[in-house]
């Protein structure tokens, strides 16, 4: 009976501190890798620069949200108070800027917040409940005190043996293969069950 070979997602390495991870990221970036990422319990100051990221585009979504909010507020107030059912209340004009400002402001803020969240979810591709990195048993510490770097096998510069050596040279420890489909490889916690079928 032949086992289908598990697909390699990438190589993971652990680093001992934020400083080490930052330096490792600088080196990997300098070597021209594209499909890789670092994982840490908190955002590391200077990491965006080390990885060569440009400014996050989330604020663009915020701006779009804000513009939508402001124009919605204007359209809402102008249409209802001046066009659809003009009604004189206390001798005030049907539409004026001053009393409209609070609602302009509030709706701008509200839709800016919505835009920001939508932008964040789109750009980070969340929610995504499963990801190959979760198959690595050491990875659980990423939300505690673990610092990790993962090189994806899809990167053109990725070569299994050399990349493993590279990760060791830049200070990584516990270097391990991360698979797309872990149920195909023996798992210490559930030894035989998966392989008898």
């Amino acid at each position: 009976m032949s086992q289908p070979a598990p697909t390699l997602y990438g190589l993971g390495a652990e680093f001992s501190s934020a400083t080490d991870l930052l330096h490792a990221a600088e080196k990997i970036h300098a070597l021209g890798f594209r499909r890789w990422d670092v994982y840490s319990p908190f955002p590391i100051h200077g990491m965006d620069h080390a990885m060569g990221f440009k400014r996050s585009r989330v604020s663009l979504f915020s701006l779009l949200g804000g513009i939508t909010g402001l124009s919605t507020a204007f359209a809402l107030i102008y249409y209802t108070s001046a066009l659809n059912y003009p009604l004189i209340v206390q001798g005030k004009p049907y539409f004026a800027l001053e009393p409209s400002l609070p609602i302009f402001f509030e709706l701008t803020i509200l839709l800016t917040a919505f835009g920001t969240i939508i932008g964040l979810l789109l750009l980070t591709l969340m929610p995504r409940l499963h990801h190959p990195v979760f198959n690595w048993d050491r990875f659980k510490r990423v939300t505690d005190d673990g610092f990790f770097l993962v090189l994806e096998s899809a990167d053109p510069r990725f070569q299994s043996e050399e990349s493993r050596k590279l990760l060791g040279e830049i200070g990584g420890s516990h270097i391990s293969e991360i698979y797309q489909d872990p149920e195909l490889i023996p798992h210490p916690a559930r030894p035989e069950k998966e392989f008898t079928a």
Partner: protein
Amino acid sequence: MRADTTSAQAAFARASDYLERQPLVANHRPLSWITDHVCRIVEQPAPMWWWISTIIFGAVAALTPAMLTYLVSTGVGVWGLNVPVCWAWDITNFVFWIGIGHAGTLISAILFLTRQKWRTSINRSAEAMTIFAVICAGIFPAFHVGRIWFAWFLFPIPNANAIWQNFRSPLLWDVFAVSTYFTVSLIFWYLGLIPDLASLRDRATTRFRQMAYGLLSMGWRGSNRQWTHYEKAYLVLAGISTPLVLSVHSVVSFDFATSVVPGWHTTIFPPYFVAGAIFGGFAMVLTLLIPFREIYGLHDLVTDKHIDNMCKIVLLTGSLVGYAYSMEFFIAWYSGNPFEIYAFTNRAFGPYWWAYWSMITCNVVAPQLFWFKYCRQNPWVVLAIVMFPNTGMWFERFVIIVTSIHRDFLPSSWGYFSPTWVDITLFIGTIGLFVFLFLLFVRFLPMITMFEVKNVTPQADPHHHTGNHHSAAKAHA
């Protein structure tokens, strides 16, 4: 000579100890200690005191729906308000609760923008407090409309009358301000929770916990491609929450300030309300945090320095409201308007003098104790002192609302408001609801923002050299 040198050195050492900023996480705790200490609160079986207090406050919270059912089924007449006092405990409680919420947003947004790193260990619980306070606040304006089943008329939904809302009315601005405030606070709070929910997911020992926290954390994996967008989103939300929090209480104050009622019609109201809100809110943050800090042994995360800073803010904002109180009197006198002068004389020396002087004692006099270091350094003294602002801020709203309208322009329409048992029970019910929700929060969600606290430790700084704590502390302070 030698003795001189050593004593000079000792003095220098003492001075530098004194001048050195205290670390934000005491005792150089490692990162895993922070995770462990915060997650343990959620992971360990609930202690007995938690069950007892949750059951007690849950029962008190049940008074809220009970009183509201009685109110709706019988009519607003069960409250003590009537002409001329048409706004009384309902709006007092509304402004009281919404004001409390403001400290949470101030800590999470304004202190973030001003790079006050000490905010990190208190912002989560303060934001939770904001959300629960706004929930309590929303009950009152919703039900004071009388016919609650028509409350949807407040929203611009086409209806059978073909008429629209009056967008020139500050009461409608309030609807937009409060609902926006609640929504944005909730989003901001949830955004901050995501990485910490992932911590709980990764530590989960049961399948159910893993699934629940896994779903809530939306698959967060702490990659830098996520962090870079996350930080930007957080910054944007902090940026918009800052004017938002200042606007909400300003809009609330417009409910009064845009009227022509002496005592309400003042331009000082927006800043005065905002200062009062921050004052009352910080008092409430301290009220909630000090007991939980003791119970869960969080002294290394919520340090004495944090308490000290918050006490100073209470002192500052308490003095600001004190200034506003006196300025109101000055302007009333300076206006030369007899009705205006009467409204304020009546406030301090009329039938509600007891409420006015309670307010002054609690809000202006009591916080002055925070000038003394001893009072700021001893948590139990702090807890005792902040009970005054907690009470005083309720009195402030009562004084502003009731004393301004209980004597109308004509003496034939003068009245005296007394609350009914329904007024009192409903307010107690919302206090129960507030504490009940907070107890649930402490039990099921991480009450300290772990990832942000880790970020202000010396070891999180990539330019930090281990072993040199002094320079690191300086670089970080």
